[in-house]
């Protein structure tokens, strides 16, 4: 566009950005807007009624103002989802950080590092559903773990809390999502200038002090990105929580899925809007704490 007069705003950058903007508009912004609009619609057994009604939101928070009879369904469901989310986040961050630290600072050869890194992706070699189902013969009442525990006399009878419990849900999530933390944290760690570590050592810092004052601050962007992955994935999940929790543990994703299957699209849309708002809020807080753009 060199022919454009210099006093006008250049068109080329706009044109270059246009395809992506268009794709985002079409497949991201538009569906989101549609969801928001539908959440205000009314519905019957067999039809959606274009409308502006608060029904879906009112029904969602029905009984929430009355704390006397315990929490309302929606609050309880969010609490259950958030609790799982917090546990999964804590464990994946811990493990993800430890694995990355080992890979980045203890493994000397690049080849070995790559090999070990590929090993981390092993959980993704089978399908999601099969991976989850294969926990059953392991953790079940008559599974391998229980047979071992009873066989060695550690417990008198099979332990039921191993499966269809918070424990099994968190276990499955950690198994799945640790990689999502490992990758960005590893990336951040590899970019740390090794001279900083030497400087810390020269200045008399202990190993823990180096970790706390040098490594962790410099891997914060990786930690935040990993956390966003994990939080977004867990908050919206209904398959893993369903299968590993024996369908007995409430999650927002499950509620939305049930409503969808009963053609209650507007109610599901309202749930989705609230969930989206909450997740965005969490991400906003995290990015406020650490400016990812600057760190990257």
């Amino acid at each position, binding site marked *: 566009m060199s022919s454009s007069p210099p006093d006008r705003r250049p068109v080329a950058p706009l044109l270059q950005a246009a395809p992506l903007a268009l794709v985002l508009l079409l497949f991201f912004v538009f569906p989101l807007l549609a969801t928001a609009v539908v959440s205000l619609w009314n519905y019957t*057994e*067999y*039809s959606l009624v274009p409308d502006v009604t608060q029904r879906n939101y009112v*029904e969602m928070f*029905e009984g929430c103002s009355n704390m006397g009879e315990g929490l309302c*369904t929606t609050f*309880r*469901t969010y609490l*259950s989802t958030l609790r799982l989310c917090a546990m999964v986040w804590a464990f994946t961050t811990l493990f993800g950080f430890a694995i990355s630290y080992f890979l980045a600072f203890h493994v000397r050869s690049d080849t070995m590092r790559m090999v070990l890194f590929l090993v981390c992706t092993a959980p993704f070699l089978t399908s999601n559903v099969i991976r989850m*189902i294969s926990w*059953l*013969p392991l953790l*079940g*009442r*008559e*599974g391998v773990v229980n047979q071992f525990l009873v066989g060695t006399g550690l417990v008198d009878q099979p332990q*039921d809390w191993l*499966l*269809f419990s918070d424990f099994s849900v968190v276990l499955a999530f950690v198994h799945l999502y640790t990689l999502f933390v490992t990758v960005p944290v590893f990336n951040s760690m590899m970019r740390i200038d090794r001279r900083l570590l030497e400087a810390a050592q020269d200045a008399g810092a202990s190993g823990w002090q180096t970790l706390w004052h040098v490594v962790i601050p410099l891997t914060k962007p990786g930690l935040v990105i990993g956390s966003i992955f994990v939080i977004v994935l867990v908050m919206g999940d209904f*398959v893993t929580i*369903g*299968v590993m*929790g*024996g*369908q*007995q*543990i*409430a999650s927002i994703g*499950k*509620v939305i*899925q*049930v*409503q*969808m*299957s*009963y*053609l*209650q699209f507007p109610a599901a849309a309202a749930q989705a809007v609230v969930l989206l708002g909450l997740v965005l809020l969490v991400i906003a807080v995290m990015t406020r704490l650490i400016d990812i753009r600057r760190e990257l």
Partner: protein
Amino acid sequence: MDKPIRAGRRQLLQGAAGLAAAGLAAPAVHAQGAVTLRYVGTAVNQHAGIKEKVRQDLGITLEYIPVTSDDVVRRAVTQPNSLDILDAEYWMLKKIIPSGNLMGMDATRIKLVDEISTVFTKGEVAGKKIGDQGTAPIKVSYLPARDAKTFATGQTQWLTLIPTTYNADTLGIRPDRVGRPIESWAELLNPEFKGKASILNIPSIGIMDAAMAVEAMGRHKYADKGNMTRAEIDLTMRVLTEAKRAGQFRAFWKDFNESVNLMASGETVIQSMWSPAVTAVRSRGIPCTYQPLKEGYRAWAAGFGLPKTLSGRKLDAAYDFINWFLSGWAGAFLNRQGYYSAVLSTAQKSMEAYEWDFWMMGKPAAQDIKAPDGTVMEKAGSVRDGGSFDARMGAVACWNAVMDENDYMVRKWNEFIAA
């Protein structure tokens, strides 16, 4: 992501429901060229064997479009133009018919209409009234006019669906672990099986199984388990919530394979179950019984419907196909899977006597009963759980349903899961 509701019934039957091309030699009647019918339904009846036979006998190509049962309703309500034949369950009609997307089928064009099982035409088996709680087919089988959006009260010329398959569901148990006779739905909530029971996490079916248990325990007598009042929904969910908090349930299941795994691995010893799932557990060499209970069965039924937009040669072809379906071959095919077919007289002619005796008469198998692929389903000498057609369908207590208070029920169910 959406798991099919009736995946269970399908698993065993699923054929290659591909979109095979239609390069076929049509009989003279169809000299104008082959007709292709787009057949939307859960894959329960979408078997490659049926498709091939239809092509040979009628020169009609079936294009199977397998979807989940939620999607059957969604398609019929929102995209009726995307299909030529709808394979729906009777309870779905309460959602579909008000949309006005299905036509009333002309009984005069269905040759064997008078031969259709009395389950559908009169709500009777062997002259005896059967339970009609819930969306019993008799309540939704007829329309007052071709284009009606409400149901007729008696028999008319206009049919909503022509039945394909139906069956009676009950509890599955592990006789080796239970160790005593089980005779009542109340056992589902018996603390004796604490941590070893399960129900399905499909609200509209799960709540009916729960209602069977609540009624059997003597806690409440429902006017209609398939159409509860809000107070009844509250009561049922309260009983379920108490049981859940007391640790009665090991897990809930949503999908056929989950129910098989729970039972086969010994996680549960008593649970709601579908007939093919019981067969699947047994085929692993693990004892499992589809236990008849004194309060009766929860039944379901499916059938063919035609979208209102269908006309001309496609409409003729659809009627041809439905008439063919009732003429015996398909009925025998389905009876051999343990389902029941609409016109039993023609199906009987297409079955071996020993097959008929086992599946329909409840007699001991004179020889091994084989699945269509040749694997042995039941050994010689075994008897079908629950016995004969008359014994099983005659003991139906209620039907899968959509309640008037469905929205409320779904909310309460979500509350129960969160409890």
